[in-house]
């Protein structure tokens, strides 16, 4: 794991937001690292711990608790489909099915602790997310950092077409 200088600079800047306690910078640092590498590997946990003068477990327990942190590589395009009530009423389970079919993803081995499934070519990965705070325009989903509203299953091809590179 090599951190480019630009990333190290961002990390040092983030730490300044917490003059009282360096420990507060655990989440921001993990975000920066996950954004760069796609997931948090064990070495990253040790790096953050050393940087913030913590025990590695104090970082690892954060990584394992929050659904927003991943310990395995996602696809190039990571899709999060809202699973919660209003979106489910609007068809989010059908959307999930249609996205899996179109990308060849098999979700049968996912569970609470391993929520992410990756396509055979590694291009797409998918998971359910809980309410994304846009319940009036469901079904909604995110692809990496992009947010998409009213993606009924018939819009699957159009959505995936945006992520072909």
């Amino acid at each position, binding site marked *: 794991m090599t951190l480019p200088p630009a990333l190290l600079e961002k990390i040092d800047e983030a730490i300044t937001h917490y003059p009282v*306690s360096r420990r*507060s910078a655990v989440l921001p640092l993990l975000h920066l690292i996950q954004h760069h590498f796609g997931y948090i590997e064990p070495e990253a946990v040790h790096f953050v711990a050393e940087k913030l003068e913590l025990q590695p477990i104090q970082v690892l327990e954060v990584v394992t608790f929050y659904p*927003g942190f991943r310990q395995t590589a996602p696809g190039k395009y990571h899709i999060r489909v809202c699973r919660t009530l209003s979106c489910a009423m609007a068809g989010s389970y059908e959307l999930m099915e249609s996205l899996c079919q179109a990308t060849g993803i098999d979700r049968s081995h996912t569970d*609470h602790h391993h929520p992410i499934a990756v396509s055979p070519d590694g291009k797409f990965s998918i998971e359910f997310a809980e309410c994304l705070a846009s319940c009036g325009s*469901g079904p909604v989903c995110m692809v990496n950092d992009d947010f998409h509203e009213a993606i009924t299953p018939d819009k699957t091809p159009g959505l995936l077409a945006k992520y072909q590179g």
Partner: protein
Amino acid sequence: MAIQYKPGKEPHPKEHRLIFRNVDRVDWNPSMERFLAEGGYEQLKKAVTMEPKAIIEEVKTSGLRGRGGAGFPTGVKWTFIPPNNTKPVYLICNADESEPGTFKDRYIIHQDPHQLIEGMAISCFAVGAHMAYIYIREEFPEGAQILEKAIAEAHEKGFLGKGICGSNYDLEIYVHRGAGAYICGEETGLIESLEGKRPYPRIKPPYFPAALGLYMCPTIVNNVESLCHVKHILEMGGAEYAKLGTPRNNGTRIVCVSGDVQRPGYYEIQVGKVTMSEVIRDMCGGLKPGRSLKAIIPGGSSAKVLRADEVFKLKQPDGSVKELTIWDIPMDFDTIAQCGSMAGSGGVIVMDDTRSMAWVLNNLNNFYAHESCGQCTPCREGSLWMKKISDRIAAGNATPEDVQQLENVAYQIDGKTICAFGEACSWPTESFIAKFRGELIAQTDSGKQGKIFNRESQVAAAPLAATR
């Protein structure tokens, strides 16, 4: 000149746009220039010349109640900072917006970030905070960037940083991103998360944030919408603001409607001045053709469900009893509470006659089982049990006794936990069973007695069976 809104996004005539004045405007963008062109930061300039106590008084007079869920009076909360305090005071804006059914803070953050920053800065000045954080959910990556840009712009103009607007008041605001956990919306869980830990809520007493919050210092946690209101209270004056809405339920609030209506969306109303019927029939265009109303969750998924044919008997101050149907309920805090539910976060979820209540409850129970932080046994185990039993009911694999068991489990959570998630997760089950027991039982099968249907328990039982 009248404000122009984007086609199809015009406010309904019964709306009163204060906080959402600039949402979906044609000629609007989140920049500093645009905000300043319409009187932006004038209230902050005024605030720093006032006595902090006078601002708190205005907020108290306004009657503003928190828009995050509990509806607690904002001005009163601010006075809970111990009077002889010598520690630094922090203010945290709760931008976790994660209660299912709620989608209002999203639009403030994305379209009108300076309104929030001005409201926050005024509030920080009033409570004596020199450092503040916006705790924003991770799923708003663009929102976090917009806020960071707005903060940088405010710095440039001297609305943040040292000596704000020529006063000797200093303030820094930082954006802090969560990581996808609902419990980070609970204020003490949020504080733990901001300290870089798992967001395990703290027990109250003694850990009331206003006394022992971030880094064990006095901390005020307020919702995005609540903090925006503060700017308007200062602009209008507390007494004038209090004329909006109804007594004890003052001001405006944003109601978010989702589910089975023709036009789901957000509607800013004067609190209590508009009824459920006006929201659903007039603003949202009613139910879909040929459908009839079955149930409404009035204040985010944790609020107890209301059944379409219920008659609510409300005691009046003079001792008489007033009867209300679901349609007559004024969209306020107190009446919805008297009807046995809560206005919560303003998220109204509508269900029509095509919906299976077992399916709806199961969806919610999956949410709560996923989101329990796991500290308290009744909540951690109970939310999972509720999910498993309602999985069975929804799949048609439950027995009638399962419904009873589900109800028992729910009542063993509520009131026995560290944080209000315990109530949040048990109220849906308690209310769905109380109001739709017959429908749930009709989906069960007494012939399924004694069989194991959960995949997890089957897997767990397999090795045991092998040893027998």
